[in-house]
């Protein structure tokens, strides 16, 4: 039973913290969006809106629970739960730092992909159970979209698997440590495909067709309100974190520090120069909070802001103290920091895309996946395979073999975009296209 | 340790339920789903025996079964869709075009 203790603890921590983290990601998203759009965003609840997620969560929990007439009550109840469950289970194989992982499955990556693909049931069944045309359209769109982009994402993952030679998340990170380079530099196209596909799989703009608010109101969530809606929302953000975590692990070295192989000790200690960066970043953040605190209009807000600063100091202290702990402690704490920092950067990109791009149309979305990403992914996988053979048989330097691969893939991508990806195809094209992928929408 | 026979009993139960489903339901989609259930029961057997004999051959077979199930589902559902378009029904006993 001792062996079960740590995984169970990890699971409890994740399940307990995730809603809070999701809430604060929403806050960050709103703030980032606001600043990109020349406005302020939430400012009222807490200093700079810092307590907004808590207020929102309370509001959502207290809202009336509406079930539409003629809805399928059982499935209407079950669907959001399925969504959240799928999203949460995916965390069980996610290594947040070398020490913090619930289970190191040797099929970890496939497990995450498989489980997060189950989240589609929540969407499809929810859309169907609502007994509303908007919901049904959203559900249909979602089903077709997720299935299509899973293929593209899978091909992107294969290119990394070839390089790492393992499906275990930990071993993939280890492979990047051993080979001394993050895989994003080896297979930039694999990363590109995964980036696009992961946006599509999490239903985020510009691929947010299943919940396109200006077209089908809110898609599969149209009839949901209150806590059930919050569950969908939680599932969406949990999924965003999952794909960000997968991308981080596969392409950005997981918990590894940038310049992992570069050692630069302080004289007389084993503390490395670069390892001090996280602590100082936290202290800088704390100073920023302290500077803002006196300017808050209310005393409560001043205190919350100061508390945020104190929290940052605390984190800085932990990060700093960990430097002098044992290797396991240091790697655990700093690994978690770097992992979360990379995940945050990835999510920031998601937000950035969301505020910048208009939304694809359904047939364009399908065409992008089937006619661009999937062929590109295939070429990429073949190229990486050839490069690996070159490396293993004739001892080529990986960069020598992978750079031509990337150039070939780039050429292929250029050819695809030039000839095939005319997004505004003729009507017949579009009709044939959608008839092939979506039986409900052809001529 | 759980004896293999328990896996076989489980497999048997699923298989029997699947057979009953195929034979008794009128809805073609549910019949198809029952067939999936039967294939699944077979998979449990294969994996249990694979474990019993310490070889992965059974698991490989199970993978083939799953591939076959995928093919079957795709074609079967295609037929059902085409049939539904023409006849507006998905009931097996109303599929009597050739019976006359």
């Amino acid at each position, binding site marked *: 039973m001792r062996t079960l203790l740590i995984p169970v603890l990890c699971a409890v921590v994740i399940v307990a913290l995730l809603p809070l983290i999701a809430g604060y990601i929403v806050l960050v998203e709103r703030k980032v969006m606001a600043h990109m759009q020349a406005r302020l965003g939430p400012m009222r609840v807490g200093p700079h809106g810092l307590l907004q997620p808590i207020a929102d969560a309370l509001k959502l929990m207290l809202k009336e629970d509406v079930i539409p007439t003629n809805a*399928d009550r059982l*499935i209407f109840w079950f669907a959001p739960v399925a969504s959240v469950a799928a999203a949460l289970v995916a965390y069980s194989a996610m290594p947040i730092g070398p020490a913090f992982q619930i289970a190191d*499955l*040797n*099929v970890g990556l*496939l497990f995450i992909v*498989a489980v997060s*693909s189950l989240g*589609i*049931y929540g969407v*499809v*069944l929810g859309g*169907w159970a609502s007994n509303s045309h908007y919901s049904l359209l959203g559900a*249909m769109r979602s089903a*077709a979209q997720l*299935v299509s982009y*899973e293929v593209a994402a899978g091909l992107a993952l294969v290119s990394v698997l070839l390089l790492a030679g393992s499906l275990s998340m930990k071993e993939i990170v280890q492979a990047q440590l051993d080979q001394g380079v993050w895989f994003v530099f080896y297979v930039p196209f694999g990363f590109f495909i995964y980036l696009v596909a992961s946006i599509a799989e999490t239903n985020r703009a510009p691929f947010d067709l299943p919940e396109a608010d200006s077209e089908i109101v809110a898609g599969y969530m149209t009839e949901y309100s209150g806590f059930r809606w919050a569950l969908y929302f939680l599932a969406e953000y949990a999924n965003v974190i999952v794909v960000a975590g997968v991308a981080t692990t596969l392409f950005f070295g997981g918990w590894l520090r940038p310049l992992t192989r570069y050692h630069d000790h302080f004289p007389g200690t084993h503390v490395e120069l670069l390892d001090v960066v996280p602590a100082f970043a936290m202290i800088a953040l704390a100073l920023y909070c302290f500077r803002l605190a006196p300017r808050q209009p209310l005393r409560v807000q001043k205190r919350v802001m100061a508390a945020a600063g104190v929290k940052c100091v605390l984190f800085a202290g932990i990060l700093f103290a960990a430097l002098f702990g044992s290797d396991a402690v240091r790697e655990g704490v700093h690994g978690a920091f770097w992992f979360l920092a990379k995940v945050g950067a990835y999510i920031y990109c998601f937000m950035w895309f969301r505020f910048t791009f208009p939304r694809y149309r359904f047939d364009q979305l399908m065409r992008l996946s089937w006619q661009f990403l999937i062929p590109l992914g295939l070429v990429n996988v073949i190229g990486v395979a050839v490069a690996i053979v070159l490396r293993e048989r004739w001892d080529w330097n990986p960069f020598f073999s992978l750079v031509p691969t990337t150039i070939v893939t780039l050429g292929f991508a250029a050819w695809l975009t030039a000839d095939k990806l005319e997004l505004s195809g003729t009507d017949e094209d579009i009709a044939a296209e959608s008839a*092939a992928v979506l039986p409900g929408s052809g*001529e | 340790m759980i004896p293999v*026979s*328990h896996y*076989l009993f*489980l497999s*048997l139960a*699923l298989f*029997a339920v699947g057979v*009953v489903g195929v*034979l*008794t339901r009128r*809805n073609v*989609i*549910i019949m198809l*789903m029952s067939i*999936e*259930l039967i294939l*699944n029961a077979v998979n449990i057997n294969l*994996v249990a025996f*694979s474990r019993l004999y310490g070889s*992965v*051959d059974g*698991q*490989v077979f199970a*993978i*083939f079964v799953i*591939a076959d199930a*995928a*093919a079957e*589902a*795709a*074609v079967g*559902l*295609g*037929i*059902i*869709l085409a049939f539904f378009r023409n006849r*507006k*029904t*998905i*009931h097996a*006993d109303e599929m009597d075009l050739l019976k006359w």
Partner: protein
Amino acid sequence: MMLAKLLFYFFALLAVGSAVLMVTRRNIVHAAVFLVTTLLATAGIFLQLEAEFLFVVQLLVYAGGIMVLFVFVIMLVNLDIEMRAVRFNKQWTVAGALAFVLAMQVLTALWVGRKTFHLPAAPAALAERNTETVADALFSHFVLAFEVASILLLVAMIGAVVMGKRRAE
């Protein structure tokens, strides 16, 4: 070991229970949900048998792929008809008898051979590197079957597209 046993019986009960529910539900969507539950429970049993790769394939292909297709098609066909229709056809008794006979046969066979079924602990290598061993078998001994399976899938794909496509009006 207690835990393993508990898990097995839990998954087995879940699988059989939801299979029965699947066959008896009037609403096809409910039936599909119960089938998904059965498939997930089966996946759990695979995991419990230390067939990790198969466990993931079951999740990914069966639950995440095939059943999504089912649900998708169910939504395309009209459900209202089914809600009012008679659920079972007239072969209920025949089918029951047949299934019973079948079950009895298999039970007898099991009873006869009950002594031989003792599950040994899986060889360490098999459990450790399940994916690799499966892959080795798949791409060496079974490579022909593998290729045949891929052609089968290709044919099925083409067939499904042809079938699903509407005739040009």
